[in-house]
């Protein structure tokens, strides 16, 4: 029995159409026109306890709608969902007791108070017994290194400090499932690494199931064995990162460090996509030309100091998936 089960989930929203101008606004008050938006259109997946899932997609693809349904906030039109064996929207209170949610953009801490006071209020809201509360809090405080921050009013914390306190706040009731909505957004590099490391340990050491939605592909690459890509309300892909790459493009990159500055390489099966004085990046299709063969040809013809083959960065894969093609990658369409 999976811990989270989603079958044919459908959710539509009615969005009021706004009319232009002051007169339009008046008319709109009296008679509204709506258009229907399908946020989720038959989404199905399941998760076992202890999985760590990257749930990605462009803005408006239905990511947060899914999370809201899984946590019992929203009621869908159709479909079956079971979280810990219960239908979340029918058992909101029981469901939310077992889940933690962190929104990167919004804190759940009380703005004018020290974090420790928010923690104590959350203890009472979730009815966590004092001894258990103390144990969990001490562990989280140590893992997240927030001891020196606890007595500072939250409004005076930096974003990175606040995020660490928010993570602790979401876990005080020891939830078995954690939803993270862009937990690293706006954070500096050090804080990002700290947050990632914490998520990794939480998942690995305590077996907490994690669903992570993010636009930061480094988060995904660092943390997620499994990704679900959602696009226009449907699941575009459910698999590993490598599956995702394979689905979008077979392309590989060949990076060549030259002996002489401004050298050139030409090969019928590879195309230069960027050049520095001493480094060229080429792309090729491994089904058209085997990497070993390409390398052999190039090293035979040119003076090479070093070279290596790599996958295109995951950002580019995602960007291409969403059709947000950057100018430098425009021509790559022919490979897909």
């Amino acid at each position, binding site marked *: 029995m999976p811990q989270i089960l989603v079958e044919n989930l459908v*959710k539509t*929203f*009615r969005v009021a159409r706004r009319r232009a101008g002051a007169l339009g606004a008046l008319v709109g*008050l009296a008679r509204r026109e709506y258009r229907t938006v399908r946020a989720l259109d038959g989404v199905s997946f399941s998760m076992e306890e202890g999985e760590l899932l990257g749930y990605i997609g462009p803005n408006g693809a239905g990511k947060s*709608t899914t999370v*809201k349904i899984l*946590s*019992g*906030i*929203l*009621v869908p039109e159709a479909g079956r969902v079971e979280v810990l064996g219960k239908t979340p*929207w029918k058992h*909101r*209170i*029981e469901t*939310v*007791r077992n*889940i933690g*949610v962190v*929104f990167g953009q*919004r804190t*759940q801490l*009380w*703005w*004018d*108070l020290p974090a420790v*006071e928010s923690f104590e*209020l959350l203890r*009472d*809201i*979730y*009815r966590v017994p004092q001894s258990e509360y103390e144990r969990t809090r001490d562990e989280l405080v140590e893992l997240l290194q927030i001891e020196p921050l606890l007595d500072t*009013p939250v409004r005076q914390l930096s974003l990175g400090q606040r995020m660490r306190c928010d993570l602790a706040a979401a876990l005080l009731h020891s939830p078995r499932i954690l939803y993270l909505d862009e937990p690293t957004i706006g954070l500096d590099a050090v804080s990002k690494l700290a947050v990632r490391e914490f998520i990794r340990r939480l998942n690995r050491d305590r077996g907490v199931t994690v669903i992570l939605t993010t636009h930061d592909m480094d988060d995904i690459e660092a943390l997620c064995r499994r990704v679900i890509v959602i696009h226009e309300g449907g699941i575009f892909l459910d698999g590993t990162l490598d599956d995702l790459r394979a689905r979008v493009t077979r392309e590989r990159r060949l990076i060549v460090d030259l002996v002489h500055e401004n050298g050139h390489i030409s090969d019928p099966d590879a195309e230069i996509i960027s050049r520095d004085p001493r480094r060229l990046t080429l792309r090729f299709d491994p089904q058209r030309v085997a990497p070993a063969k390409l390398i052999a040809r190039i090293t035979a013809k040119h003076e090479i100091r070093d070279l290596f083959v790599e996958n295109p960065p995951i950002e580019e894969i995602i960007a291409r998936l969403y059709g947000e093609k950057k100018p430098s990658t425009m021509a790559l369409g022919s490979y897909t």
Partner: protein
Amino acid sequence: MNAARLYIRYIGISIRSQMQYRASFVMLSISSFFATAIDVVGIWALFERFGTLRGWRLAEVGLFFGLVNVAMAIGDAFGRGFDQFYRKVRDGGFDRLLLRPRSTALQVAAQELTLFRIGKLTQGLIVLFWAAGVLNVTWTAGTILLALFAIFGGATLFYGLWVLQATLCFWTVESLEIMNAFTYGGAETAEFPLSIYRPWFRRFFTFVVPLACVSYFPALAILGKEDSALGSSRGFQQAAPGIGVVFMLISLQVWKIGVRHYRSTGS
């Protein structure tokens, strides 16, 4: 921890938050006092010019005024979370409340206890005691209890109005000002005796938004005056404030409908 104790914990936090801005609290309290005082001056000027209002004297109107404003100050102080609820809907903060294993009404109600309403409360009490003094109200256990009941009923009624205003946010966060017609407009209406209004207006403020039940009717009983205009019985006058409590309980049920609507439509 049960709901009542949790509520008190929340209110403690709200008070500590407000006490971080002491100067702001003092200024707001003073302005709240004077805003109400200006209303008093307006009514005084009216009576100074015209003497009486269909046989009602200034001090009698002062009694209505005192009851309504004390009740409103209390309802306002406790109902602030509902009054400001549109922000929570607009910025998605309501989702956070749904993510916690507690009733949403409790969490909204517990959001804030607005201390600076003490200004309005003080002004209301001053007018109330002045009026009672001028009118030679005999403070017996009965009249004291009835005055407290009227204030309690009034506070719950205003509270209910803010709950309804918040519930409206589940459908639209625009044109909420319409509720001001019932809250602030209603309060100003209830500062004057019901008998001076037209019948449909009286009925509206007795049966729909029952502000007359927490000011006009109990005030008559406190004054020991007969209701010559409307002919209400003494028993009704004494029981009337209970309708304010009923109004709040109904509002909280309507709130649940609003929450259900929100969860099925989202926004």
